[in-house]
């Protein structure tokens, strides 16, 4: 068998595939969705996250390989957050990385770093926003998200988070729009085939650091998250419901983990 050192390196840490996946989506945005205009701020996000994590490593708060997590956070910010001023992107990166070290309990994170920064900035600043329709309903991007998502989730054994979240949300949408309100199936289909929904489900909520470690607890947690997202989006009419639902649900994770006496997740095999 031919030895491919780069392949075994990539397989050694699921974060590499996560990085490749998110980079692919960014490339897609730049190529087909007109994101080249905001590409400058994307590099600011990536560089700021790496610098902030670098400082933490220098201070001895984190191992060197945690730079990979920082790059993932930077890519997440680039994919989701839109700002008027590049300085805000630096602020987002600073918030995202620093909360990992400043806000933690018994070694557990309260929030997914990118999600925390997005929620805080969108809520507090007048110059940051999230565009939930930026991916459109393109089938090709969904297929891409699906395959890359499946590869990563299989490797980190977190496919169940995405499956339970997506199935619950899909059921709720079909029950409300098709069965209760009486819209055509095309309405439910439209809601469930947006690129944002797939990207969030497979790449954001599945972060093993901010989801319960216990299998059953994790599945119940994913279903509760879906329920909250559904409520915020269709009863409170918040288009960016997924961001806020995750922001509200992740702080409970450390408590769930401690109660279940679960070990912390480790990225390195």
């Amino acid at each position, binding site marked *: 068998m031919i030895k491919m050192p780069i392949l075994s*390196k990539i397989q050694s840490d699921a974060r590499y595939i996560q990085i490749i996946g998110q980079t692919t989506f960014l*490339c897609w945005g730049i190529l087909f969705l007109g994101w080249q205009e905001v*590409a400058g701020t994307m590099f600011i996000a990536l560089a700021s996250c790496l610098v902030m994590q670098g400082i933490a490593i220098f201070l001895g708060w984190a191992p060197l390989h945690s730079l990979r997590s920082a*790059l993932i956070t930077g890519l997440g910010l680039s994919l989701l957050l839109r700002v*008027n001023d590049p300085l805000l992107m630096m602020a987002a990166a600073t918030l995202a990385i620093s909360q990992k070290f400043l806000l933690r309990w018994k070694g557990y994170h309260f929030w997914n770093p990118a999600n925390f920064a997005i929620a805080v900035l969108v809520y507090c600043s007048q110059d940051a926003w999230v565009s939930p329709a930026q991916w459109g*309903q393109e089938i090709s991007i969904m297929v891409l998200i699906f395959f890359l998502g499946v590869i990563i989730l299989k490797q980190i054994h977190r496919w169940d988070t995405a499956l339970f979240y997506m199935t619950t949300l899909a059921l709720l949408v079909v029950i409300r729009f098709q069965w209760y*309100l*009486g819209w055509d199936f095309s309405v439910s289909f439209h809601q469930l085939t947006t690129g944002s929904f797939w990207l969030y489900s497979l790449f954001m909520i599945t972060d093993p650091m901010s989801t319960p470690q216990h299998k059953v607890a994790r599945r119940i947690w994913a279903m509760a998250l879906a329920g909250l997202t559904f409520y915020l989006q269709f009863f409170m009419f918040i288009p960016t419901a997924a961001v806020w639902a995750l922001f509200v649900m992740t702080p409970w994770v450390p408590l769930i983990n401690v109660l279940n006496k679960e070990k912390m997740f480790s990225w390195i095999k």
Partner: protein
Amino acid sequence: MKNFQMVLGMVLSISCFHHSWAFCGFYVAKADATLFNNKSEVILVRNGTYTVITMGSDFQGNVKDFAMVVPVPVVLKQSDIAVVDRGIFDRLDAYSAPRLTEYYEENLCQQRWIEKEDMLAYPNVSEASSRMANELTEEDNYHVTIEAQYTVGEYDILLLSATESEGLKHWLTDNGYKIPAKAERVLQPYIKSNMKFFVVKVNLNEMKKGGFTTLRPIQIRFDHPKFMLPLRLGMANSNGTQDMIVYAFSPNGRVECTNYRTVKIPTDRKIPLFIQHDFGSFYKSVFDRAYEREGKNCVFLEYAWNVTPSWGGMKCDPCVGDPPVNQDFVQAGVNWYQRNTASSIFFTRLHVRYDQAHFPMDLQFQSTPNTEHFQARYIITHPAPVYDGFDCEWGQSYLVELHDRRRLEWEEWLALTGSGNAARYSYISEFDQYLHQIPPHWRNEIEEQYELPTLPKKGSIWPDSISVEWSGSSEGDQSRWGWLLGLLTFVSAFIFFSNRKLK
């Protein structure tokens, strides 16, 4: 002295072309909303949960046949309903329509400067469906409740709530509102969502009293977190596509769609000079092509600008119509702006072409803090005047540049509209006759690129149109490859140098 003139001329033209954002051409034409058939216009105002919707009517039939049913989230009070002057739509359209601007080049063999301004007019072609409305009777066994009943201006208005679509459909039919057969299925979800129905017909007496000859736009305002435009009811009986122009005002920045992608229409493209006589149909083709390319399920951004009266910057670049003023804001329903305060107003123009197959849901929006300005602008360039001759050294190199630039303009035209009249091909070589020596590479390049039979000759017959594949050629389109390469290099380097021994 001649040398001085040359230098001055070059400085002027360089400063013009290298600062494409600081406008130094002239507005010559616009592609206004009247170009599109089956179109409707709406003004949206949104501040927090406060929403004002003004519906422009282009109803062309007998006014006694006019009727309209709009789902609304709450029962409106009489003070929430108004009738406004049609002029506000025309002013906003004139201000924000896609624009053609022109530059003039100088002949530095002997410098001259000419300015010209022109404007094109387009016939107003529009149609709307008609719904008959007769006298209303009491609700009875229909499970329909008349929540409120008003006469506002020349309109009789009813606010209905219903518990079942069958009853509502019968009530409307029995009261003289002709409801399309397919509409019943669409009424049901609105009823279940607890929406009310805003039902309008014309009060002929009031109309006569007021001396109105055309129907004025109706405006409704309410406080509700739902920020949407119901399209599905209007689509129930229509198989074709309809165009809608949305003029939106919000306090912080652009309004964008949250359940369909909001896409910028191609802008800042240099196009051939001959477009100036047909800019309207040119823009229509640009829109058609963009609509097809983006999958027919997008909302297009045509204009976005800060229009705060106290804001010092330019309100348009160039202006094709006056920016909205205080009176327009008041009429549109902007209620947050106060002079000498930090409040601001941002204006967005969206253009959506929708049909049943590609727009299964009503349009939903959000007001973002995105303050980036945008306009649909196309640029034509007049060549240096011929009568000064091109015999000097500058003139000869200018002609080569002109030929090359016109080829790019021609390609841009084909790329933007999808096809072009091949007879226009002579545009590129129009000035070649003044060249002392024709560069040999031109002939081969052009023949290969478009697979044209021969170079244009006098009297030769050309096909009516040639189709080319879309190939964006703006600076923005080219820059994406640079960013792509940068990103891939960055991430590859990261993975390559990331050392797992240091875990």
